[in-house]
């Protein structure tokens, strides 16, 4: 007499009726050995379900909260960064519009140089954000210290972003200097954040 294989015994326990299972069920009800095997299988599964729940050795909520907050900030930058190009464009337009008929060629050249610098800083900012995204921090775990340093940098970034939002409301003469200063600060903070992320990524072997 051929007894049921483990795969057939497991199929018998499944809900539904796959082809062949009815025959295996009939066999299991008629064969003492297979019925006993099925009971042992049921008992094994019951014992698996009754295994004690394992508990984490330490509380990770601080890291989770810091990571969640950082993720939210990061998504805000993405929105902000897209707006950065618009800021640059509006400042460029301001350079053109504020150029009066008597304005010297030197003054215009200086304005254009400042505009180029601003464009370049915004491009650096976007590039650094890309680098941070490439480390995929939302999907990575961090130790408490790294999470805390990153969260502090991200808070400062958020404050810079808040100030940048106000630049458009400033007087024309102050707007460009303020934008340059804030974007430079933003790039500095992003550079520091890249260092934190890259160091952590190397430490855990990614």
């Amino acid at each position: 007499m051929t007894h049921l294989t483990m795969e057939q015994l497991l199929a018998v326990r499944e809900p539904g009726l796959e082809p062949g299972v009815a025959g295996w069920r009939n066999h299991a009800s008629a064969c003492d050995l297979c019925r006993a095997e099925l009971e042992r299988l049921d008992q094994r599964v019951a014992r698996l379900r009754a295994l004690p729940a394992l508990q984490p050795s330490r509380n990770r909520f601080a890291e989770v909260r810091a990571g969640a907050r950082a993720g939210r900030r990061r998504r805000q930058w993405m929105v902000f960064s897209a707006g950065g190009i618009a800021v640059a464009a509006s400042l460029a337009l301001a350079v053109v519009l504020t150029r009066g008929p008597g304005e010297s060629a030197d003054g215009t050249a200086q304005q254009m140089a400042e505009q180029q610098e601003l464009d370049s800083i915004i491009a650096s900012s976007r590039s650094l954000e890309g680098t941070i995204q490439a480390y995929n921090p939302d999907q990575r775990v961090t130790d408490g210290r790294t999470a805390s340093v990153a969260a502090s940098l991200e808070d400062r970034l958020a404050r810079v972003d808040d100030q940048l939002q106000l630049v458009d409301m400033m007087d024309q003469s102050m707007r460009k200097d303020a934008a340059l200063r804030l974007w430079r600060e933003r790039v500095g903070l992003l550079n520091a954040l890249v260092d934190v992320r890259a160091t952590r990524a190397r430490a855990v072997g990614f």
Partner: protein
Amino acid sequence: MDLFRLADADAVLPRVKAGDPAAQEALYRAFEAPVYNLARRICRTTEDAEDVLQETFLEVFRSIGRYRGDGSLWGWVRTIASSKALMRLRRNKYRDTDELQDDITPLRREDTALRMDLETALERLSETSRAVVWLHDVEGYTHEEIAGMMEKTVSFSKSQLARAHTRLRRWLGEEVPA
């Protein structure tokens, strides 16, 4: 599972969606133990399981706005945890040690002195087999769902389960002479 805590978790859901840190902590406390247990049963090390725990909750808080309540909250969290644990298995590419050891030194029927307890036997299974056993037999996922999460076929899931139970039966000393 602590039903009181689970009820709490559902109650704080609107505040979690609004990003309230206290509500996030309540949700974390409600599901911390079952998520960790699932992760630890699938992953080889406690460190990996703790990382899965952290990754799971980061994903939960990031995606909570997409949870529409069409299934249980625990079911939704558990699916995220299972996916994260399986992703970690794929990334770490653990060696399937039980198969190697079995090939070299098969356990003989008379080795009843080597009979293991269930915890040890479960731990000795390969990562893939253990994951399938846990997800199917304990968490109650179907082979179709497991195949989807593992990016494998349904037959793969079924054969892994059969193989695992054959090994568990032998290691637990439950084999009956034919």
